[in-house]
């Protein structure tokens, strides 16, 4: 009906009937580039506005409400301001690395969008090792952050970057373990197959308590991996002014800022895909009528709904908790989360082998 799969098929058919196969690829590439860039801009605008509105509601205030209807255009105005600001490069900075870093961070965020299934049949690249690809590429962002911290020639930036390096590398382990437990349950690394395996129920519900533990560990680990409060030590403003992006201004700062929000979207999308069934509607056992009703809701709505629910959760964390200290942060990972997730993975494997999951 209105499914995105329908539209993509139409486009595919129209292109292949009018052009030779080589040109079809070129046109599809172009469409994908335009769509991805558009998605980036829209996501950035929506998420920044959402963050500000969520923060305002939590902090008993109104939030942006002057630019445009109900403050909808506030982020557009903010972006305009950032575009017009001078992109300053400090005198003693390593100019090449300093200017490269924000693009690297942004590029990682862009690459991560590729294997995400936004709706039924609406996916850029259904790679057969999708989960592995995500884990591999997401580790690259730490290089950009370390580069920014080092090249700025600022001690605050350096401290922030070093903290960030320790943090991202550590928390990647438990995030990987949590992801692995779903891979064990579904028996595939491919995103579409993981989603298909949740047709009769999401892994969060099907995998008993170990899946819930994996989900909680995953949420904590990705909050840390995206440098969000309470794990925002890399940019702890009361300690390091702005951490690794202290020296950045204008559009270069905006790229870091945008990459942070895109990363939040991506990790939440991955969380929704692995644990909450991606674009799969909510199905409950043998409730035929209920399940049929749920099928009427478009798959893209399901996917975005679940993703934004998780994003809201992560924003809620930020505006509630104080920041951890650096040694507490590492102790949390190495002393608690990693042993728990290792044990949990064993349990999940046991469940998968014995077929105890629903």
């Amino acid at each position, binding site marked *: 009906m209105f499914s995105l799969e329908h539209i993509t098929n139409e486009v595919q058919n129209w292109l292949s009937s009018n052009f030779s196969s080589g040109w079809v690829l070129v046109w599809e590439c172009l469409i994908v580039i335009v769509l991805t860039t558009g998605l980036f801009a829209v996501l950035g605008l929506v998420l920044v506005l959402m963050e500000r509105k969520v923060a305002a509601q939590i902090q008993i205030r109104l939030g942006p409400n002057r630019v445009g209807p109900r403050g909808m255009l506030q982020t557009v105005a903010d972006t305009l301001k950032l575009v017009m600001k001078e992109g300053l490069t400090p005198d003693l900075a390593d100019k090449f690395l300093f200017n490269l870093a924000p693009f690297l961070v942004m590029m990682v965020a862009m690459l991560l969008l590729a294997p995400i299934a936004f709706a039924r049949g609406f996916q850029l690249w259904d790679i057969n090792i999708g989960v592995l690809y995500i884990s591999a590429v997401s580790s690259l962002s730490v290089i950009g952050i370390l580069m920014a911290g080092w090249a700025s020639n600022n001690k605050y930036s350096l401290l922030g970057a070093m903290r960030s390096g320790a943090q991202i590398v550590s928390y990647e382990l438990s995030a990987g373990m949590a992801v692995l437990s779903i891979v064990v349950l579904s028996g595939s690394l491919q995103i579409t197959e993981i989603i298909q395996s949740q047709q009769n129920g999401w892994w969060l519900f099907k995998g008993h308590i170990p899946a819930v533990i994996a989900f909680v560990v995953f949420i904590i680990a990705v909050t840390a991996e995206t440098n969000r409060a309470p794990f925002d030590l890399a940019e702890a403003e009361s300690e390091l002014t702005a951490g690794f992006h202290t020296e950045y201004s204008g559009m270069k700062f905006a790229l870091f800022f945008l990459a942070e929000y895109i990363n939040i979207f991506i990790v939440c999308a991955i969380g929704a895909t692995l644990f909450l069934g991606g674009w799969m509607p909510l199905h409950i056992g043998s409730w035929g009528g209920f399940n049929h009703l749920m099928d009427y809701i478009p798959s893209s709505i399901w996917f975005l709904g679940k993703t934004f629910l998780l994003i809201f959760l992560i924003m809620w964390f930020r505006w*509630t*908790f104080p920041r951890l200290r650096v040694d507490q942060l590492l102790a949390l990972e190495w002393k608690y989360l990693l042993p728990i997730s290792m044990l949990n993975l064993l349990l999940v494997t046991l469940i998968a082998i014995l077929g105890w999951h629903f």
Partner: protein
Amino acid sequence: MYTETAIISDNTLAGPEGELVINVGPQHPATHGVLHLVITLQGETVKKIEPHLGYIHRSIEKMCESLSYRQFIYVTSRMDYLSSHINNLGCAICVEKSMQIEVPQRAKVIRVLMSELTRIASHELWLGAMAMDLGAFTPFFYAFREREMINEIMEDSCGARLTMNYMVPGGVMYDIHPQFREKTKAFVKQFKQKVVEYDDLVTNNIIFQNRMKGVGILSKEDAISFGCTGPVARGSGLSCDTRKIFPYEVYADVDFDEVLETGCDSFARYMVRVREMHQSIRIIEQLIDNIPEGDFQAKTKAVLKPPKGEFYQRVETARGEFGVYIVSEGGTTPYRIKFRSPGFSNLSALDHMARGSKIGDLMATMGTLDLVIPDIDR
């Protein structure tokens, strides 16, 4: 092109043995003003802290020497701007003491009420600012919701929200606003309801407790030797509440407890301030319905000329003991005025408290000292 100043070169060169010297301030989100800390770091660990002052020195003590005994009180509002009522009160009492002015009972009660409201407002701001130092933004807005009510009460009676200039030698400048009682009662009610939210959001938060407990240790002996006063010393179990030891105005007649905690750490100092707010509410509740009728200001001469001599008065501000020392030559202006500000002594303990801790804990410890820089650097 910039030529490298001493500070910039200090900032770009590593110290001996891989030590890192960073300048926190004079403009930094955690210093709440223009405090400049030169911190020597080894990795994340703080090796040495050197506070540098002087960025907001306005020579207030010297200025006071050329102002009359009525005028100099207003300048003291600009010192500890968060408890300006209490600063003014200390000066007013000192002048009254020298002139032997009898203050009407009504004025005394109003002064105490205003002082306690100021103390709550100051502690509310501190609560929000300290939570911000720890990276939590939301408590700031919750604390300011109640502080705003106090500011409105002040605005009604004093005509100002921050530098009130309400205490004058002989009493208070104006009578209280007709709505003062009603609004104060509304505030007390609101505070008692909403204080639960602070506990949920801050006090009982597991991350907050882990950040505060066992951090920034200041033993009782050290508190005495550094001359710490106020909540900082009371968090180390040192009984030093001027309101109890040397009662002034009507503090001897009201029923309240001196808050003491024996934890000696940041959490103890936090708890002292939170519990002090409850004690202030207790004082307000006792006095708000018992404001006696009568004059709000004693009849005094237009020009005050204290006799030759030295006069000292101490009061308990939100940050600790504030002392006013006046040397009079019998003229219309003081010969010399010296203020004892609580923040200066409390800041001097920072190096001792935070040495060896992580840089994040340094900010948390500094937050619990509740520093107001214009008070330290007059």
